[in-house]
């Protein structure tokens, strides 16, 4: 029995050593960590320019990007910056009346054609060319009372636009006809709550294409700029040496800084999130390509999931930056290498733009999982196991990275910069 239990004990001791970096927070020497956190946070707020740089600029960048992106996508897929009109051929009077009375007429602009006009247009080949370039063409075919929608099947945006035109205009129109009640709009079917939820379903789905990846990209960017100030330039300035000379353990100094970075970046990201929603609710021109369309709304549970994922992701990003900063000597190389993950995140952003729902395993990929989760939240497919997966995929690697940095730089967290 004895050898077995000693084996267990040895294993336990090993596990404890590994865990010690995680459990350092609960160490009774938290004093140093707290002092560092207080210092770093008050440093940001002691100066309004710094505070603005941390809290307003990320939100502003996000807003600008989200307002420019739709035009970019539109341009990439259709070759024109502005939105194209919907071509409607052979429309019956009932449809024209319907448009007059409903919101469909305010979202879209139309070009109307008679049957003959459309046939010439089609034969000339312009119609096909137009569709390839993103035109949406709607043909009312009287013979079998069918409505055909033409769009470019290779362009996600074109499909998306056709789809939303169908659900916003055509389906309600057909329902209306089927009702056959004589009047086009029934006043008592209008229910404000269903209306808002309708908008929400649509808006959240649109938002899920870009916002999750943008948000995580922003988190990394903020962490990167803050960490390079907190460590790299401080190390360069020699101030870091002064911290190392205090009786606070280097581990605690590093942890204190990482935690303050996480707190500040999470704060900035929550702020951005808030801006996002405000911007959405102020966005009344509800264009179908808008990435922050009118009516963005999350339920409390969904909001909570996002609120948890943000700091966890920020912490992971901070440990990644830490590892880069302490494994490279020269300041110039440090900055270069810190920017590498931005490229990965950019690639992910483009991937997300055109990909559908995320698979189970995607939630287990660090950082990518966080994007997948926020995306799932916006698409209303969020389930709690996804959060568990993302937590595992974020916390485990950050602990390993922290441990690795601690072990590698056990003596001090410093490789002295090379002097000429």
């Amino acid at each position, binding site marked *: 029995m004895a050898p077995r239990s000693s084996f267990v004990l040895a294993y336990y001791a090993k596990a404890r050593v590994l865990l010690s970096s995680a459990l350092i927070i609960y160490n009774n020497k938290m004093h140093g960590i707290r002092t560092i956190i207080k210092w770093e946070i008050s440093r940001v707020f002691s100066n309004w320019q710094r505070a603005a740089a941390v809290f307003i600029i990320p939100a502003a960048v996000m807003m600008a990007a989200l307002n420019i992106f739709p035009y970019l996508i539109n341009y990439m897929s259709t070759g024109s910056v502005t939105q194209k009109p919907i071509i409607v051929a052979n429309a019956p009077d009932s449809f024209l009346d319907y448009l007059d009375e409903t919101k469909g007429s305010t979202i879209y602009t139309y070009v109307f054609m008679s049957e003959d006009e459309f046939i010439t247009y089609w034969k000339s080949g312009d119609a096909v060319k137009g569709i390839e370039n993103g035109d949406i063409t709607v043909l009312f075919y009287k013979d079998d009372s069918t409505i055909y929608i033409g769009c470019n099947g290779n362009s996600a945006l074109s499909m998306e636009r056709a789809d939303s035109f169908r659900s916003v205009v055509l389906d309600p129109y057909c329902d209306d006809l089927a009702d056959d009640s004589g009047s086009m709009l029934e006043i008592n079917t209008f229910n404000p709550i269903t209306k808002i939820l309708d908008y929400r379903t649509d808006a959240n789905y649109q938002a899920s294409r870009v916002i999750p990846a943008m948000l995580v990209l922003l988190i990394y960017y903020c962490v990167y700029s803050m960490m390079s100030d907190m460590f790299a330039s401080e190390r360069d300035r020699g101030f870091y040496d*002064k911290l190392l000379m205090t009786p606070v353990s280097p581990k605690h100094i590093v942890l204190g800084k990482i935690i303050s970075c996480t707190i500040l970046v999470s704060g900035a990201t929550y702020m951005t999130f808030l801006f996002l929603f405000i911007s959405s609710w102020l966005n009344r021109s509800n264009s179908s390509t808008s990435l922050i369309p009118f009516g963005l709304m999350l339920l409390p549970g969904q909001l909570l999931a996002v609120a948890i994922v943000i700091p966890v992701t920020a912490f992971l990003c901070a440990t990644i930056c830490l590892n880069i900063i302490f494994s490279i000597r020269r300041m110039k190389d440090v900055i270069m290498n810190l920017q590498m993950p931005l490229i990965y995140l950019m690639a992910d952003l483009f991937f997300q733009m055109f990909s559908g729902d995320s698979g189970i395993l995607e939630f287990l990929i660090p950082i990518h999982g966080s994007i997948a989760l926020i995306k799932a939240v916006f698409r209303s497919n969020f389930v709690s196991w996804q959060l568990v997966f993302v937590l595992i995929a974020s916390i485990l690697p950050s602990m390993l990275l922290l441990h690795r940095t601690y072990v590698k730089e056990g003596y001090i967290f410093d490789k002295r910069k090379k002097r000429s």
Partner: protein
Amino acid sequence: MISVKNVHKSYTRNTETIKGVSFEVPDGVIFGLLGPNGAGKTTLMQMMSTLLRPTSGVITIDGLNARDNLLEIHRRIGYLTTEVRLDPMSTPDKLWDFFAELYDIPLKESISRKEAIFYKLGITPFRNKKIIELSTGMKQKASIAISLIHNPPVIIFDEPTNGLDILTSKQVTDYLLELKNEGHSIILSTHIFSVAESLCDEIAILVDGRIVAQGSAEALSQQAGTDTFEEAFFKIYVENHVEE
């Protein structure tokens, strides 16, 4: 009390920056490391203050090995780096409070020490100004004050009067003498022999990572057979420096 025994340091595999240095500094003594730029003064001082690990050799502070008792040693040494650049947006006052908290100094004690040191070094007039608005001398004084925050028995100052005018220099050296009389052991590095001559009880001349002569200024002049310490320094330097 500091003792340095046969310390070597190589930054790269085939060059040795410190080539076997040994000395001892008892309490109540100012020990000067005098040497030209690149002699290895900063390297040596960083090793004494635990920021760098020697390639070989032993450094003890009050009998504690600098390798193993990091945090305890940090309580005992005050270290001033050559080019300190404090957080530009902060003020001397705020920096003091921050470091006092890191050193876990009781608030009352911290405040009375702050008043005393700020007054002595003449920091009081600009204590609430941003670091970015201070002159080199003011910044240096603030750094000195902060490195002495915990009243350390051992003081390691790397070129403390570098770039200071004569008046500020004198303020600093007077304060160092005062600290010496209180029984602190002080090691300072300098490339200015007049500072070494007037201030240090014991001077070690460092050339190319080796101590080539050691003693009081007078003893060194005698040893070299020159009238002044200045001549002695040049003579000793020329005799020992090897062009590569």
